[in-house]
């Protein structure tokens, strides 16, 4: 687009070439006339007050029906406002880099691309980096720190379940004998403390805290039919202690929660999305830990010459048949699969003497006082 004659154009007086100008140093609104010359020349009362090179002119945000311009080499916040549509079109046509500062289609594509790259690397770190870090870091965590964690867990268990420790003397002796045998077979030292507790809402469960505290809930004991069943469960928990699974899980879950939270930020309904993906990642990790603890339990029991299958039977009695379906979300492998695995492992086992005598077993069952004998 060429203008007629550039130097002699009587632009200052031409009507329709007026605009509002804010010089960026004061907020005074100045009515100016524009001359479209070698550059955009801004004139006030016939005197030149600024001239903007077309290449340096950028569009600034404005309400509809108004062209607002800024100049990257001028006073930072100086603004020129053109209301007249024809003049605006004329100026726009002369400024080749007018919209360079505004987000364009390419800019958005770059945002999308980099976001996906960031997301991919976070996912890869969660899937491969974090488990590796948990694996490598766990042996570096001092035992004393792990015991502290255990004490914290202990306090919280007390607050949540309000358990009462069962201390029936004969039962306690039987329990200690059982745990002692398992510990020897598993090669663990005496820092492992285990106790049988009874809780007010009856829960059939057993778990290990970091630093080697094993809890056996009386409800589980009540459902057990022989000493091997209980021994298997305890051996499984000792497996967690031996593998320092709580510590590993803590590092793994802490790391993956943080990274997944980072990934989703406050996106739409992040709560549910966050929860689901975290559960998926963490439960798969925990399934691995569980099946390792099962292997440990099988080995420990076999070293004592006792079968591992009863443990599986006890679990099946508690959980019932779990059936087919997805296992992605569950933190444990399917009970049926575990039972089948133990059954297979037991074949060819030369059975040794029972771990507890009949009387001892009865005493253990009655460890929580006068409930059942």
């Amino acid at each position: 687009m060429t203008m007629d004659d550039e130097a002699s154009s009587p632009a200052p007086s031409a009507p329709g070439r007026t605009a509002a100008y804010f010089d960026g140093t004061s907020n005074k609104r100045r009515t100016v006339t524009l001359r479209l010359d070698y550059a955009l020349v801004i004139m006030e009362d016939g005197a030149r007050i600024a001239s903007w090179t077309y290449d340096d002119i950028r569009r600034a945000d404005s309400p509809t029906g108004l062209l607002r311009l800024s100049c990257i080499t001028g006073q930072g916040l100086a603004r020129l406002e053109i209301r007249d549509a024809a003049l605006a079109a004329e100026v726009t046509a002369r400024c080749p880099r007018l919209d360079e500062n505004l987000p364009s289609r390419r800019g958005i594509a770059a945002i999308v691309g980099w976001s996906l790259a960031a997301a991919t690397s976070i996912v890869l770190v969660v899937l491969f980096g974090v488990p590796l870090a948990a694996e490598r870091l766990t042996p570096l965590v001092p035992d004393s720190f792990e015991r502290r964690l255990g004490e914290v867990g202990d306090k919280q268990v007390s607050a949540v379940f309000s358990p009462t420790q069962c201390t029936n003397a004969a039962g306690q002796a039987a329990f200690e004998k059982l745990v002692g045998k398992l510990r020897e077979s598993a090669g663990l030292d005496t820092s492992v403390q285990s106790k049988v507790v009874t809780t007010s809402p009856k829960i059939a469960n057993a778990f290990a805290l970091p630093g080697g505290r094993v809890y056996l809930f009386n409800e589980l004991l009540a459902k057990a039919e022989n000493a091997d069943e209980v021994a298997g469960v305890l051996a499984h928990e000792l497996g967690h202690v031996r593998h320092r699974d709580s510590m590993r899980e803590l590092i793994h879950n802490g790391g993956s929660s943080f990274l997944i939270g980072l990934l989703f930020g406050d996106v739409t309904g992040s709560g549910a999305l966050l929860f689901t993906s975290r559960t998926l990642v963490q439960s798969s990790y925990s399934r691995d830990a569980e099946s390792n603890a099962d292997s440990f339990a099988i080995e420990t029991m076999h070293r004592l010459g006792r079968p591992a299958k009863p443990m599986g039977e006890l679990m099946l009695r508690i959980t019932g048949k779990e059936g087919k379906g997805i296992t992605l979300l569950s933190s444990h492998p399917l009970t049926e699969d575990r039972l089948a695995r133990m059954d297979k492992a037991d074949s060819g086992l030369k059975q040794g003497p029972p771990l507890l005598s009949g009387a001892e077993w009865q005493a253990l069952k009655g460890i929580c006082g006068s409930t059942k004998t």
Partner: protein
Amino acid sequence: MNDLSWTPPGPPPPMPVPPPMPVAFSGGRREFFHLVSRGAGLELITLGFYRFWLATDMRRHLWSNTHVDGDGAEYTGRGKELLIGFLVALAILVPVYLAYFLVGLEAERAQAFASIPLFLFFYLFGQFAIYRARRYRLTRTVWRGVRFWMSGSGWIYALQASLWGLLVLATLGLALPWREAALERYKMRHSYYGDLQGRFEGRGWDFFKRGWWLWLLTPFALYMAIFLPFVYGAFKAIEWRWWLSGIRFGDVRLESTLRKSELIGLYWKVIGWVVVLGIVFAIYLGLCAVLVSSMTATPIDEFFQSQEIVKSIPMLVLLGLGYLAFALAMNVVMRVYLMRDLWIRVLSSTIVHNIGAAANVSARGELANALGEGFADGLDVAGF
């Protein structure tokens, strides 16, 4: 200074005080709707990273269509600044979280759940974020080629806010008006438009006089949730009105005539949309269940009775997709109603007195970084 020869002949000089000036808004609703729905889609594709640019675009739209005395404002912040602020905040928050974890561990060892008071520390951080985020937004606000800016210390503010917060807690909320007045005084005293200093003249007592009956109603509203939008809407309207009417920049004075019914109506519209979207989502889930059960040839009632429904993968995928669509639609509704419509209702009730006092302001003040916005994003706090 006045040269007589320049005075125009005819009527006497203009009134000494210019008439009160309403604030106008010129942005189209459809345009904003388009902006936020596109933004929600991009937010989904980028797994949330687009939020920095979407927030910027929404502010640019709202700011540039707001006219005071005939001139539209301008928002000069950019999405990249918010992203950088977020990353810097992250670099600071990660070690803080770790330290928090270790200190919390020691506290828990002494006493179960003793680490809960440590939460106060993050409250302090959140208040700091609120102050600094406001500072960022203010320094990106330009009107007539001159920017607003803010001085003051985010930490002093956070300390004040936390102490006042404790007092509010101790008085079961009765001290809230005085807390807001004190904090707003601090914020406005450190706010400037060019060389025009701001101040806040709203008094806690005035706020209390207008809103005390809501304090009495709150327990009932919490008990009977149907009254909650009424009480909350009335509270927000009183708060907005009191806040705006207390703002001064030099001799420029704001006034608000916002009516309670306007906000209550707005909240009910949002609730209506939530109900509609919820029903649509429920119907969708029902259809999915029928579809999946016919695919697997399980009778529908058995499908619901057995735990099958939560274990079937196609069902979970359909559920996930439906949930995402539901969440996106909710997001759009929230932004259109609770950002744009709220903005307009508040603006259209606002009157500027004596705008002439802001006629010759010199530019001053520096830009602030987006660290506060980053903290606010990382800690999930929001504020004005």
